[in-house]
């Protein structure tokens, strides 16, 4: 019984550990405390019932009751008897919380705050899992099955998070499950009596059984295959490993880690990352019936923090619901609203936002996962990603005349929008600048125009993709000082200045129209990503201002109310792109080094080039085939080289003049002519080379080679079984005799025509072999393959021996050995 009690607590702890992944959902740890309380109550109830020797069903009932009590205690409805006993009112309260949790799940993105409904759902779920795990582990003794309910907890973060989350909590959960399994097995073994661990009995517990070793090897191979195979298969590199690599850049908001919760994205960092990329990739393709559309936008940064503007967590209705239509509002003089349609195909753009034109009124092809925030005018999702989506929408294009904007009244002090969108850090420099700019201006529009015009080349502002560090500690103030930056600095700075002038403003993110237009279709790349400022005018709405120099932004668009401040300075009204840099002496030297221009030019050419050699797979196939063919010829090549080397050796021997007629059988007692050692050694080596070649040839032609045979016997057998031709017979006898004398006699046979002999024997053998053998001998010589195989086997055996020795050495430091004196349980 003690074991069962122990097991029950292990089951409860394992459940809590398995709930660790939920920590990625919640912002705080309240859920864990509540879960621990409930799980503890469940485990306590189970223990109590078991103590009373209750049957399994009684245990289940007890645990359910404990769960109910726990939930009632933690989430009271105020109607309980004695504040503890649940009443129908309590259950109704629970039901309402479950219903609310469904709504909250849709509306809140991770990480969520402590919301009662969600906490209730979590605690209830974990408590229920604790009951099931306990029943499976202790009641039914099937702890492996307990992994299934635990897996249910696992699946929650997986379902909630669009992108990958940290693996650590999952590892913790897995450890809990393993603990459960181990505890159960130890308990099971204990049933047979005392557990034998081998401690202190000089039992080598590290010596595995062959079966265990095989299992371990299988496991290692399996893991290796599971890790390496996805890496080897193209198109699967966006998995775990690349995520890990990308995650190394910091907080996960790097350019590769696009996506995530809409409220958590560092849009500025991603923008600069994409703009600074050397490669150009198509992100979005949009088709619209608007002849001159404004920028496609997807996000807004409207909350001022120390590090700059960040997006608020968006909040809104499902996009499938009816969207607010700006035409419903009062019509004003000087504002034209026209309805248009657009369809978007997202190619390579991963964000929790969908790029749309401002003020969409209806969408098609977007599911209920997507929501629309009417204030921010963005379509967002807490769980889906924009990648690969295709959708279309209707939108209203608003155009404003300067007069209409000038007629707009300033928002009163205390207006919610004004409070929210003019929040900015106090800076004396900025305040002085804004005061200077807006001095004497009568209305908001003039103030905004003054600020907008300030970002002109006349005032020393230049466009460059790399910003310089400043001394003020604030990027935007640095920009105002250095006056060199790109769209995000321009937009952020203008937003700040406008806010400083007490006019609501925010930074919008999107795409310019780019320079790749075909009919009504715009293909937008990462270099077309852009940021600009939106200013709020009372009764009119958010009006975009793009302070970035139009000359440097392909596809930039200016309107009447916000004309390009650089344009009047141009000596000739030529196109912006050619005249802009030329007119600016300071920008002249940099013209060629501007990455954006270079990229745009490259993208225009490169796009076509890529399409031209688009079907490049035949080249790969041919390349792979050639490579394979080369690999296949390696053994044959090796064989040919080997033969040539041996023949050269033998030929060289034959060409040396016969100084001594030492041929024939020397007989006992004959006075021997003393030859130099080197000459003898060379003659021996020649004979050996010839014999090796003969043996290799035999192997190639699949003729038996017997290591127990002497050269003489081999030659005799060949004469008897394989060869019929007279010259070949003589040749093989010569080879045999040469080898035998080289091996065993005082003097080797010298100056024999070994090469000719080899050739004739080979010819004869080849004539005697069937076609398959001949082809194989030429292409995949068995002798070479055999030698390589045996070399590989030797290597493997050596490795195995080495690991064995290493293991023996390691065994000396085995903790079991060191702790051998520990008293055994």
């Amino acid at each position: 019984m003690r074991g069962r009690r122990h097991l029950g607590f292990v089951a409860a702890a394992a459940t809590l550990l398995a709930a660790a992944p939920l920590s990625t959902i919640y912002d705080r740890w309240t859920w864990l405390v509540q879960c621990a309380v409930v799980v503890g109550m469940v485990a306590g109830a189970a223990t109590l019932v078991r103590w009373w020797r209750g049957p399994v069903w009684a245990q289940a009932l007890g645990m359910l009751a404990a769960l109910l009590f726990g939930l009632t205690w933690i989430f009271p409805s105020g109607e309980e008897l004695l504040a503890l006993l649940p009443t129908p009112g309590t259950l109704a309260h629970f039901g309402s919380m479950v219903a609310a949790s469904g709504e909250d799940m849709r509306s809140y993105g991770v990480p969520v705050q402590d919301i009662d409904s969600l906490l209730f759902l979590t605690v209830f779920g974990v408590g229920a899992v604790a009951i099931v795990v306990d029943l499976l582990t202790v009641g039914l003794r099937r702890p492996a099955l307990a992994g299934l309910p635990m897996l249910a907890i696992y699946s929650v973060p997986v379902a909630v998070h669009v992108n990958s989350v940290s693996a650590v909590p999952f590892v913790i959960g897995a450890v809990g499950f393993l603990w459960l399994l181990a505890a159960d097995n130890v308990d099971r073994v204990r049933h047979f009596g005392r557990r034998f661990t081998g401690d202190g009995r000089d039992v080598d517990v590290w010596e595995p059984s062959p079966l265990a070793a095989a299992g371990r090897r299988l496991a290692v191979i399996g893991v290796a295959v599971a890790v390496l195979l996805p890496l080897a298969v193209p198109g699967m590199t966006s998995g775990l490993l690349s995520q890990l690599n990308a995650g190394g850049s910091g907080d996960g908001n790097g350019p590769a880690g696009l996506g995530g919760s809409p409220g958590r994205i560092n849009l500025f960092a991603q923008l600069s990352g994409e703009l600074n990329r050397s490669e150009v990739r198509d992100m979005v393709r949009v088709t619209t019936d608007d002849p001159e559309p404004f920028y496609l936008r997807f996000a807004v940064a409207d909350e001022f923090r120390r590090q700059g503007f960040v997006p608020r967590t968006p909040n809104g209705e499902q996009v499938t619901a009816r969207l607010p239509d700006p035409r419903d509002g009062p019509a004003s003089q000087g504002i034209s609203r026209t309805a248009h349609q657009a369809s978007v195909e997202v190619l390579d753009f991963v964000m929790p936002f969908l790029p749309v034109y401002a003020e969409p009124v209806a969408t098609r092809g977007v599911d209920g996962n997507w929501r629309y925030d009417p204030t921010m005018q963005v379509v967002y999702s807490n769980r889906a990603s924009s990648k690969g989506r295709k959708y279309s929408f209707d939108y209203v294009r608003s155009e404003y005349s300067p007069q209409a904007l000038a007629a707009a009244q300033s928002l009163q002090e205390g207006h919610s929008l004004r409070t929210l969108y003019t929040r900015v850090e106090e800076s004396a420099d900025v305040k002085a600048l804004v005061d200077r700019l807006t001095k004497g201006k009568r209305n908001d529009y003039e103030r905004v125009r003054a600020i907008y015009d300030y970002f002109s080349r006349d005032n020393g502002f230049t466009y460059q993709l790399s910003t310089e560090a400043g001394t003020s500690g604030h990027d935007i103030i640095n920009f105002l000082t250095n006056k060199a930056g790109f769209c995000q600095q321009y937009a952020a700075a203008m937003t700040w200045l406008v806010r400083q002038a007490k006019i609501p403003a925010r930074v919008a993110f999107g795409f310019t129209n780019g320079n790749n237009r075909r009919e009504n279709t715009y293909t937008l790349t990462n270099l077309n990503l852009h940021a600009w400022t939106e200013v709020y005018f009372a009764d009119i709405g958010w009006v975009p201002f793009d302070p970035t120099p139009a000359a440097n932004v392909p596809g930039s668009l200016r309107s009447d109310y916000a004309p390009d401040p650089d344009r009047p300075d141009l000596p000739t009204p030529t196109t912006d792109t050619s005249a802009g840099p030329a007119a600016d002496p300071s920008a002249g030297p940099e013209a060629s080094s501007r990455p954006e221009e270079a990229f745009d030019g490259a993208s225009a050419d490169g796009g076509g080039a890529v399409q031209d050699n688009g079907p490049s797979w035949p080249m790969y196939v041919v390349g792979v085939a050639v490579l394979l063919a080369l690999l296949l010829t390696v053994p044959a090549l090796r064989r040919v080289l080997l033969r040539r080397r041996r023949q050269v050796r033998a030929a060289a021997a034959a060409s040396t003049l016969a100084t001594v007629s030492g041929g024939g059988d020397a007989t006992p007692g004959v006075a021997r002519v003393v030859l130099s050692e080197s000459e003898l050694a060379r003659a021996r080596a020649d004979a050996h080379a010839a014999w090796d070649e003969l043996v290799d040839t035999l192997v190639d032609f699949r003729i038996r080679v017997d290591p127990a045979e002497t050269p003489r016997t081999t030659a005799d057998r060949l004469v008897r079984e394989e060869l019929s031709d007279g010259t070949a017979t003589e040749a093989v006898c010569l080879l045999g005799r040469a080898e035998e004398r080289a091996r065993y006699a005082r003097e080797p046979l010298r100056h024999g025509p070994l090469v000719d002999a080899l050739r004739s024997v080979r010819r004869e053998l080849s004539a005697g072999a069937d076609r398959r053998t001949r082809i194989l001998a030429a292409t995949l010589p068995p002798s070479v393959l055999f030698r390589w195989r045996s070399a590989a086997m030797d290597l493997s055996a050596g490795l195995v021996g080495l690991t064995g020795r290493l293991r023996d050495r390691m065994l000396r430091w085995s903790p079991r050995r060191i702790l051998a004196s520990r008293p055994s349980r």
Partner: protein
Amino acid sequence: MTQQTWDELGGALPNEQFRSASDAIVANIEEVIEGKTATVRLALAVLLAEGHLLIEDVPGVGKTKLAKALARSIDCSVRRIQFTPDLLPSDVTGVSVYNQENHDFEFKPGAVFANLVVGDEINRASPKTQSALLECMEERQVTVDGVTYELQTPFMVIATQNPIEMEGTYPLPEAQRDRFTARIAMGYPDSGAELAMLDAHGGRDPIHELRPVSDAVTVRRLIATVRDVHVADAVKQYAVDLVTATREAPDLRLGASPRATLQLLRTARAVAALEGRDYVLPDDLQALAVPVLAHRVISTADAQLARRTTDAIVSDLVHRLALPHERQRSPYDTRPPGSGDGTGRSQYEPRRR
């Protein structure tokens, strides 16, 4: 009496003389024994290897005739002992008898005091008598009454025995068998040889007309020549491997002794010299493995039950054992598994004790 000590052999013979001398002996013996050239040459090789020969075969195939022909071909002292159950050791070695003339014990040398000793039907003598040969065969000396007498050189014991009829015989003890360098079987002559024999031996025994073609001095020089034959390290290694294999073979209860290694190599030298080579080949060892090793080993009861003779076992070992290579080479072995193996045991496995 023992004028010649063992190591005074004289100079080695040049090639032609060696060949003519050995060929003369072989041809001489073949006048008597038809169609048994290999056996005759082996017998001569054993003589040149300074060993002793055991001829074992059924009656009537010419064992004794071969022994006598070899003895007669060489002009040296020949003694013949007919082993009988009542033969005494002193009959073999000699005995000290009291000479009444000079009142002293006088040594009467036994039958072993000769260059060639033919022991006929050696297994018919009692073990006591058989054992009397132990010292003389290995150490080439006789010790009687505390006095050691050297034997002459060349000294060779040629014993015959009949393996079929076992009644009233005493099988040679292991120690005795180990002292015989080689055991050869005569085998039946083929029909042509037997026909020729009928003609030659029809009237009279040609052995009486056999004239010696060589003498002890020549034989000693032949022996010296044989000692000079070159043995490469690989061959020595192969000899050791062969003998080791008999010690580890699972079918053998007792393997060959180190003396067997020595005598194997010695006989191989003699065979190489007789074939006109001045170096020993592994082929020589392979050919000699059965005659030299098979009578020294004892097979296990299992092998005996399976009717595997020691000859078959040793021959099997020879066919399985790979040649040692002084060079590093990848050993090809493309033999089909289990070839030439009657019992189906595909892999040679060392016996564990």
